[in-house]
């Protein structure tokens, strides 16, 4: 009566990502991002948001997609990074790179400590622990008005020019390129990680922790390591958010944010670094468009999409890209993969 659920559906995914991902495909998103910079003058701040969400989604992909750490608390890391960057810029220095580094390191530390505590649990208990951390931070940020501004949000940040030269202008030129550069650095790191032996072992842990333990992999430490890296990345994304908008709201720490980033990931496709690009960019731009029509239409669409993707399209949108690419390759006649 139902389509047989193929639990191993994206089996073709990881392998074919390996060496066969040609340079053209690698260049495509970055070239598009640069073209966007020169052509979409009025949309740069929206573009910056998209880049930040791509980074955040990518961080979730490392933890959830590759390592199989099913968390709903990723917004805790994102929001923590954002508040760190914001508070640092108010009380210490407005230099963006220092601030971003501090946010990244502190969030990595948070991920490391909480990871050590919670990663030996599994399933619903783990999920609940991540939710508890998220709620804890949310309530703390809500009540510690002297530090975070409470539900008014963190205001009064001032960010110095990037590298002492480039001002963060009203149109968002600097913020856009700055975020894109940080995303690129993290992208290279993430790409290297998932294709390293370490990345493969993490992938193995997702598929069967028991067997990985049996062949001598230190499962728990590997999970803590990937969770820490993922946290650092999420913290960077949060830091970029704080710097580009010069404001941090409580919503960064909400369960809704965790939900949104999960939507972006599943929409684009898990276990695919580029899935984050597709999911987050489509989300941000389509949301911006539909929100102008009717602000609540979007929640409806996104909820419906989630249900549909889980039930019918396990590989996410990027699996459609794969299919299109395969079809194209066959048309051109190379057909080597079929």
């Amino acid at each position, binding site marked *: 009566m139902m389509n047989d659920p193929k639990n191993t559906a994206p089996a073709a995914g990881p392998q074919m990502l390996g060496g066969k991902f040609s340079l053209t495909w690698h260049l495509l998103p970055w070239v598009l991002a640069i073209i966007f910079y020169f052509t979409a003058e009025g949309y740069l701040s929206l573009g910056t948001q998209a880049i930040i969400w791509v980074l955040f989604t990518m961080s979730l992909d490392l933890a959830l997609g590759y390592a199989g750490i099913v968390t709903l608390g990723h917004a805790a890391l994102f929001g923590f990074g954002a508040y760190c960057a914001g508070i640092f810029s108010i009380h210490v220095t407005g230099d963006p790179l220092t601030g971003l580094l501090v946010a990244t390191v502190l969030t990595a530390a948070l991920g490391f400590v909480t990871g050590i505590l919670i990663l030996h649990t599994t399933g619903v208990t783990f999920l609940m622990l991540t939710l508890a951390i998220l709620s804890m931070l949310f309530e703390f940020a809500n009540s510690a008005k002297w530090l975070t501004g409470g539900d008014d949000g963190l205001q009064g940040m001032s960010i110095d020019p990037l590298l002492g030269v480039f001002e963060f202008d009203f149109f968002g030129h600097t913020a856009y390129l700055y975020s894109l550069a940080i995303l690129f650095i993290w992208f290279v790191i993430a790409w290297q990680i998932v294709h390293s032996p370490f990345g493969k072992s993490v992938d193995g842990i997702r598929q069967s922790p028991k067997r990985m333990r049996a062949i001598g992999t230190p499962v728990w430490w590997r999970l803590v390591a990937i969770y820490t890296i993922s946290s650092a990345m999420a913290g960077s994304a949060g830091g970029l958010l704080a710097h580009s908008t010069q404001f941090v709201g409580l919503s960064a720490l909400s369960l809704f944010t965790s939900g949104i980033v999960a939507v972006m990931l599943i929409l684009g496709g898990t276990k695919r670094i580029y899935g984050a690009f597709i999911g987050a960019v489509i989300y941000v731009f389509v949301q911006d468009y539909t929100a102008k029509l009717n602000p609540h239409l979007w929640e409806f669409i996104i*909820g419906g999409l989630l249900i549909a993707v889980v039930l019918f399209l396990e590989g996410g949108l990027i699996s459609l890209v794969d299919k299109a690419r395969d079809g194209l390759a066959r048309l051109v006649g190379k057909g080597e993969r079929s």
Partner: protein
Amino acid sequence: MLSYTLTVLLDGISYGMILFIISVGLTVTMGLMRVVNLAHGSFAMIGGYVTAYLTQNGYNFYLGIVAAMIVSGILGGLCEMTIYRPLYRKGELAQVLLTIGVVFVSIALITAVFGAFPYPMIFPDHLNQLVDIGFRTYPAYRLFVIVVGAIIAGSLWYLVEYSLFGAKLRAAVDNSNMARAVGLNVNFLFTATFVAGSALAALGGAIGAGMLSLEPTYALKHIVLFLVVVIVGGEGSFKGSFVAALALGIIDTAGKYLIPEIATYLLYIAVFILLLWRPQGLLPPRSAA
């Protein structure tokens, strides 16, 4: 001082009862089907809104509750049969994502129909009065909630421990494959408990509207609380969720009276530590321990 303590205790118990009524369905479905159902709050929210809508249009409050339970029960049953059933064979990730999708859809629909602002529930006059309970006067509403909660807890306890249906249910929670093997219709049990759980959530959402106010984000805002009750109590454990709900209600209320600045996050720290100490919850069903 004694009267103050008793007041805190009563407030806490009534709040805990609401949490229990809403969460008990979630306990059973999570224990029975091993599905992480984040959308449980949506059924409570829909129940609350249906009742509030009917009372605002002049219908009887209790009639409204019955209608809400029927609506949520039917919706729950339909969801179980269509979108939840394929989930049983998928991993947690798929379950979390799909059910959060249901939450988003319900938020959008409620906003579209009732607007984005809190929606007031009109309670009947006899619940809005104060009753003399010896040492002070106390809102009848909260007493009503405590009585309803106690009745539901008692009858559920009786149903689960002493009825044939309860025996089947316990068997299926403990080992659904074995239950199937001895000829129980576990699929029917799934649907029946899902319907009953959704209907109870609707009841909790309706009579709890005085404490957990109705707004479109209700389903997302309170789901962490409901999950805390289920998981701290131990998935699939009635007694566990009853104890956990009352404890949560009392601790949360006492915290808000005594240490309002830090109560909210202290609660989550407590949950965090407790789960690290006992990952299976306080009173896990025997086989899960």
